[in-house]
């Protein structure tokens, strides 16, 4: 019965094996309790097969559906479609209520990372009150990344994968307005033309003037 039902997205695959691979990946992604790395997913299918191509195909199959396959920091996960948001909204699903100060601090870290506390303060023009960074680290949106290679070796902060995941961002360059701000020179420092703040660097790597904690 299962094989009779026509499912055009799959039927254009010629071999039964290919269909099987898609089914397996679909099942794994559905059953997983967290986003899955491409290389983890590879272990579920034949080594010779390119898991990336299958994932792209699944992504296409689900693109128009009520659930989509999305990619976050090179990890794959099924999510409900964004346009259904209004219909699915649960009774105020306890959106982590951040204070204005915490939200701004989060945003500055996201766009300027790696950022030290004094850089955050320079941009906001006020001292960071106690608990602000703590709250952001507690919800696991911000982490200590490393240290800046300057006197005093201040700790640098950056965002986490959970941050990307929460805001449905594939990677940091997807941050809204990123390009626009960069072009306007608004992600640079003000001290002098020669002094420029580091460009946001992917949270996995270290910037030139940054080193591990």
């Amino acid at each position, binding site marked *: 019965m299962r094989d009779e039902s026509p499912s055009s997205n799959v039927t254009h695959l010629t071999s039964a094996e290919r269909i099987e691979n898609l089914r397996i990946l679909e099942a794994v992604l559905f059953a997983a*309790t967290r986003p899955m790395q491409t290389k983890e997913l590879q272990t579920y299918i034949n080594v010779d097969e390119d898991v990336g191509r299958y994932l792209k195909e699944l992504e296409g199959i689900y693109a128009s559906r009520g659930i989509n396959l999305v990619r976050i920091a090179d990890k794959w996960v099924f999510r409900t479609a*964004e346009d259904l948001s209004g219909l*699915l909204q649960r009774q105020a699903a306890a959106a982590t209520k951040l204070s204005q100060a915490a939200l701004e601090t989060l945003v500055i870290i996201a*766009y300027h990372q790696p950022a030290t506390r004094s850089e955050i303060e320079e941009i906001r023009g006020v001292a960071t009150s106690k608990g602000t960074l703590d709250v952001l680290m*507690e919800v*696991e949106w911000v982490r200590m990344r490393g240290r800046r290679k300057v006197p005093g070796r201040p700790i640098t902060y950056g965002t986490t994968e959970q941050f990307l995941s929460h*805001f449905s961002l594939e990677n940091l360059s997807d941050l809204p*307005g990123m390009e626009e*701000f960069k072009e306007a020179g608004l*992600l640079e420092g003000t001290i002098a033309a020669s002094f420029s703040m580091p460009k946001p660097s992917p949270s996995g790597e270290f910037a030139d003037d940054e080193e591990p904690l």
Partner: protein
Amino acid sequence: MSQPPTYSEQDSPPFEEDDREVLGLVIDIEGFEGPLDLLLTLARKQKLDLTQIEILPLVEQYLAFIHQAKSLKLDVAADYLVMAAWLAYLKSRLLLPPDPDDGEEELSGDELAALLAHRLKRLEAMRKASKMLLEQPQLGIDVFGRGLPEGLEIVACEGSPDYDTTLYQMLKAYAGLRQIQAVKVVTVKKRKVWSLKDARKKLEKMLQMNFEWTTIDSYLVAYLADPEERRTALAASFGASLEMVREGHAEIRQDGSYTPLYLRAVTPEKSLNRKGDA
């Protein structure tokens, strides 16, 4: 330009999305996230397009705002005053012709103004980014993951489990343990403090009818034995004595630096004469 800008609710352009009351009767420094935020709000009021901000009028507005806050006897936090001082300096740099003797390192008024404008634009950009970020579909609010994931069946293999502990969790645990030792409740012992009023009352009592020059110390001899009280007694009495001299009830004399202070009461006639002289 010399006319400080006046504000009323009628002529204020509508805020883009900021409903904080800037001026008018409500002056609420608490509502601002620091002096830069206040400047930004003022700049927005001036022009929605921040690329066109005019720094000088903005400086005037900020200074007027702080001045108004002070005249209403509101406590203005120190960092707002520091910013006011800096803006006053900027204003003078903008208005006065550049000093040719200035070192090359010194930034010109225009350069300083450009830096300030840049900082405001940058803060504005981050504000905008905050809003845009919140408009992103959020997990658990707009988009959802699988509600009932079955989980991948893991057959634990030999070897040690993989702990996904983070540095933060570890630091948090440490802070939790040591917080108890780290934080002490400090109770400050209440110090004996003479108010000016106290001092004056005591001094008046002792000074009564004493028309001879006498050192302040000897008036206070009963109080100076206690080292804790000595300082406050001397300071407050000195203040009170000056007040009494000013009002014409007493006279004070010192023969030279660091020599004893002498005090005596003014006789009623003398006091009258003095008033007549004046």
